[in-house]
């Protein structure tokens, strides 16, 4: 990943941020300039809930080069306690140990490394509670 992208996305990737629309009061993820529900510009930053439950999960064996170091890994669709749904890895676990509905907590992990000399991409993943 290139420096401007890592820099631009650091807050939302590290902190898992969405928006709260001040007009329609609805939450959404990720950060956008306009509320995706009512198109209002009157929005504020929202820190997403740090815990949630697994709706779907599966294993990833083949992926981009910069993620292959971590494969096979588990990718999950997680519904956070505030109702927002996000896609994220369930790390420190194995497929056999997971069932739908399990509670998870957000953690800070390496998402990808740009070769031996490039930048490291950090972001949120989940671990079982």
């Amino acid at each position, binding site marked *: 990943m290139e420096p401007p992208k890592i820099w631009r996305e650091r807050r939302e990737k590290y902190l898992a941020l969405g928006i709260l629309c001040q007009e329609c009061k609805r939450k959404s993820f990720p950060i956008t300039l306009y509320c995706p529900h009512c198109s209002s510009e009157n929005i504020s930053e929202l820190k997403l809930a740090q815990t949630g439950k697994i709706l779907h999960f599966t294993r990833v064996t083949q992926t981009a080069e910069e993620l292959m170091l*971590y494969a096979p890994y588990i990718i999950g669709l997680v519904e956070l306690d505030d109702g927002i749904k996000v896609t994220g*890895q369930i*790390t*420190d676990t194995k497929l056999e140990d997971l069932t739908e509905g399990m509670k998870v907590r957000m953690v*800070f*992990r390496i998402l990808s490394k740009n070769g031996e000399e490039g930048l*490291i991409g950090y972001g949120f993943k989940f671990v079982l509670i």
Partner: protein
Amino acid sequence: MSKLGIVSYGSYIPKYRISIEEIAKVWDDDPNEIISQLQVFSKSVPGPDEDVATMSVEAARNTISRWKGNPQDVGAIYVGSESHPYAVKPTATIVAAAIDAEKELTAADLEFACKAGTAGMQMCFGLVKSEMIKFGLAIGSDDSQAKPRDPLEYTAGAGSAAFLIGKERVVAELEGTYSITTDTPDFWRREGAVFPSHGNRFTGQPAYFQHTVDASKGLMEKLGTKPSDYNHVTFHQPNTKFPLTVAKMLGFTTDQIDISLICKNIGNAYSASSMLGLAHILNNSNPGDRIFMTSYGSGAGSDAFSFSITDEIEELKSYPLTVEHYLNNKEQINYGKYSRYKGILR
């Protein structure tokens, strides 16, 4: 005058463990002999998606969440480590962004072998005391490397501990700190080298023991205290035998040091070692307790601290992600997985 001291604390230990027995098997060593020498049974291993930055962030977030304060009030972040993910690009900046402390703060990465974290604590105490900042976050974090078959391989573990220093709602008041520094080449890693080198037995008497004893004695002399004044003590833990020996040399009892000895299960967490001991002690301490800590960093130096626990400690003890939680949250891996996770297999 308001108290100066530790306002909150947080820790992190990765989930994976490799046993001494498993490593000994690879090299046809006698595990019982090694275990009895080191009194270490297993060591912690970070997952492939972890490094010093991720472990620092977890410890820092636990510190901030336990404190329930505003991360924007953190005026300094220092991360002490000898295994920063970048040679140039501070881990402290990543921590700052990940705990939402950007951008009005000072920050730096520190390196002093295994005592860079406690050096960061001293810097924070100084900045807070001089009122240059309101709160300072000092982190000790390491994912230490050891050459396969080097004796270090049995103990080089990983972990992270963080302390928030300030003057409001202090849980452990700083009674004093005192340091020793000499040019002692017991352990080193040249720029660009992957694995550290060391002086084997030379790392003991003239290095670890001399500095730890001198700093500890020096602080107790300064404060007019003696080992029996303290409820708990923590030292740097390259193995379990060294801190037990140094405790005895100084006149501390096994009861006083016992809680701090996390090395048995996670090995030597380097910059986080004595600090994880302190975090574990804090979570098991009571108002009025007095706590002594002396770190050791090769190269070499020691920082000694004396703390007195306040009533505020009770508030923080209920936070769920404790050293104990991380000690219990573990999964054993074999040497093959270990090699992969540590990047030895390429």
